[in-house]
C-alpha cells in the first residue's frame, strides 16, 4: 500500500486509539505488571504488601501441585497433534465434496457455539455413572469407567472433549476455507497422474495449507495454556484431587480461595512466560500472512 501525499496525521491517531489503549493499560498491562511485583511479596490481595524476595518462587518449586499443573498441561499439549491430524483429515474428506458436507460442518460446529461452560455441564451429565457411555461399557466389558472421578481419566476427558472434539468443528470451517483456496488445476493434474486420496492428500493438500496448519497449532497452544479455565472450573473444579489442576487453576485457588495473592503472582509469572512465548510465535505467523 502506498503512503504518499499527505503527511503525518499528528495527534488524531492517538485520539482514535485512546479508548483501546486506556482499557488495555488498566485491565491488561497494569495487572500483568502488578502480578510481577506481587510475586516478590506476601500479600492478601488487599492491604499492604510485604517484600519477601524470591520466597514465593521457592515455595512454588517445592509445591507438588505446581508440578502436577505442569504435567497436566503437558498431557493436554499431547492432544494438539491428535486434534490437528484428525481435523485436517476430516476436512480433506469433506473437501472431496461428500454429500451434505455443509450440514456436517455446521453440526460439528455446535459445541463451539455453546461455549465451554455449557459443554462442561453437558459432559458431566453424559459421562455420569449410569450415563449412556457407561451403560455401553458395562454391556461390552462388564464394568464402568470413572471418567470424572479418577484423576487419570479426568485430564484425558478434558483433552479429548475440549481439545479434540470441540476444536474439530472450529477447525473444519478453518481448514475447509484454506483448502478451497488451493488451485484446482493441481488436483486435476494429480487425478490425471492417477493419484489416489492419500497421494493427493500428502502431495497437494498438505503442502498447500502449510501456513494454515502453523496458525492452527499456535491457536491450539493458546487454547491449552490460556483458554481452559472455564471448562475445567465447570467440569471438575481442578479435581478430582489435583487431576485437572492447571496453572490457571492454581492462580484461581491461591488468589481467590486462599487469598495468597503474592504466591498466586509467582504462578502468574510462570504462566505469563509461557503465554508470552506463544504470543510471540503467533505474531510471527500473523505477520507472515499479513506483511
Amino acid at each position, binding site marked *: 500500500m502506498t503512503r504518499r501525499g499527505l503527511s503525518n496525521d499528528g495527534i488524531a491517531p492517538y485520539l482514535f486509539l485512546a479508548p*483501546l489503549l486506556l482499557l488495555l493499560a488498566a485491565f491488561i498491562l497494569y495487572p500483568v505488571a502488578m502480578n510481577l511485583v506481587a510475586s516478590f511479596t506476601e500479600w492478601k490481595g488487599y492491604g499492604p504488601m510485604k517484600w519477601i524476595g524470591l520466597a514465593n518462587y521457592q515455595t512454588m518449586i517445592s509445591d507438588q501441585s505446581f508440578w502436577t499443573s505442569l504435567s497436566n498441561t503437558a498431557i493436554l499439549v499431547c492432544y494438539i497433534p491428535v486434534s490437528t491430524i484428525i481435523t485436517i483429515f*476430516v476436512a480433506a474428506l469433506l473437501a472431496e465434496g461428500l454429500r451434505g458436507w455443509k450440514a*456436517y460442518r455446521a453440526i460439528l460446529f455446535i459445541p463451539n457455539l455453546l461455549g465451554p461452560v455449557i459443554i462442561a455441564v453437558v459432559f458431566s451429565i*453424559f459421562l455420569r455413572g449410569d450415563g449412556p457411555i457407561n451403560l455401553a461399557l458395562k454391556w461390552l466389558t462388564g464394568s464402568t469407567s470413572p471418567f470424572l472421578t479418577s484423576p487419570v481419566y479426568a485430564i484425558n476427558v478434558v483433552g479429548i472433549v475440549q481439545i479434540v472434539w470441540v476444536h474439530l468443528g472450529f477447525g473444519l470451517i478453518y481448514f475447509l476455507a484454506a483448502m478451497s483456496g488451493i488451485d484446482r488445476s493441481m*488436483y486435476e493434474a494429480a487425478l490425471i497422474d492417477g493419484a489416489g486420496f492419500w497421494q493427493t492428500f500428502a502431495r497437494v493438500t498438505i503442502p498447500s495449507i502449510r501456513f494454515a496448519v502453523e496458525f492452527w497449532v499456535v491457536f491450539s497452544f493458546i487454547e491449552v495454556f490460556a483458554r481452559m479455565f472455564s471448562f475445567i472450573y465447570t467440569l471438575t473444579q481442578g479435581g478430582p484431587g489435583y487431576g485437572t489442576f492447571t496453572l490457571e487453576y492454581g492462580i484461581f485457588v491461591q488468589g481467590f480461595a486462599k487469598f495468597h495473592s503474592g504466591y498466586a503472582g509467582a504462578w502468574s509469572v510462570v504462566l505469563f512466560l509461557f503465554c508470552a512465548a506463544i504470543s510471540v510465535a503467533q505474531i510471527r505467523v500473523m505477520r507472515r500472512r499479513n506483511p
Partner: protein
Amino acid sequence: MRNAQSIRGEVRIFVQIMMILLVLASLLPLYDVVAASFKSGDEFLVNTFLPPNSPIIDNYVYAATSGRLLRFTLNSLILVPIGLVFYIAVCVSAGYAFGKMRFASRRPLLLFVLFLMIFPQLLLATQVFRVISILNLTDTGLGVILTWVAYFAPFGTYIMTTYFTDMPYELVEAARMDGASHLRILTTVMVPIAMPMIATIAIIGFQSMWNELPFSLLILQTEASRTVTLGIAMMKGQYGLRVPIQSAALVIAMAVPLIIFLVFQRYVTLGVTAGAVKG
C-alpha cells in the same frame, strides 16, 4: 467444495457412512441432555438414556423460574449487547487508526496490542478485581462490560486493522483532499464499506462475551446479577440438583447461541477464518 474427487466407488460410500456416524456420535451428548430434560425424576431413574416415555415440561418451568434461568438469560441479553456497542466502537476506531492513519509509533503500538491478545483471564483476574473495586464497580454490569471490552478488543482490533489496511488508500486520500476529517471519513466512507467485517467481529464479540466465565464469576457477586453462563456454571456446583432439571436449564441456556447461529451463520463462518484465532 469439490476439490479433489480422488475417492471413488465403494470407498466413497463407506466414507459417507462413516461421516454420518461421526456426526451422529457427536450429537449424542446433546441428545442425552435434551432427552433427560423431558423426563420426570422417577422416569429418569429407570430410563436414563432412551427418549422419554411420558414427556413433561415441569423441569423447564422449574429451571426457568426457581432456577432463575430466565432472569440470567435476560441479564446476558442486556449486558452483552451494551458490551458489543462499546466493543465495536473501540475496535473500529483503533482498527482504522492502525490501518489507515500515519503516525510514528504505529508499528510498535500495533505489536503491543497483538502481544496482549492472548493472556488468560486468570493471569489478570486478581488485579482486574482490584481495579474494578477502586473504580467502585464491583457487582455492576458496567464493571463486567469494561473488563470484557478491554479483554476482547485486541482481537477485534486486529481483524479490523487487517481489513482497513487492505482497503485502497485512495479512498482516504480523496476525502482528505476535500477537507474531510478522519472521523468523518471513518463514519461516512469506511464504516458503510466495512459493514460485513463489522458484523463478523460483532459475532465474535458476542460469542466471547456470552460465554465468558472468569471475569463475571469474580465481578458479579450477587445471584440476581449473574449472566446465563455464570448461572449455569454455579448450578453445576449445587449439590443434589437433579439431572433432568440441570438438563432443562442447559437447553434454555443453549437457545440464544443457537438462534444467533441459525440467523447469522455466514458471519459465524467468516469469524472463524477472519483471524484464525479465537478472542
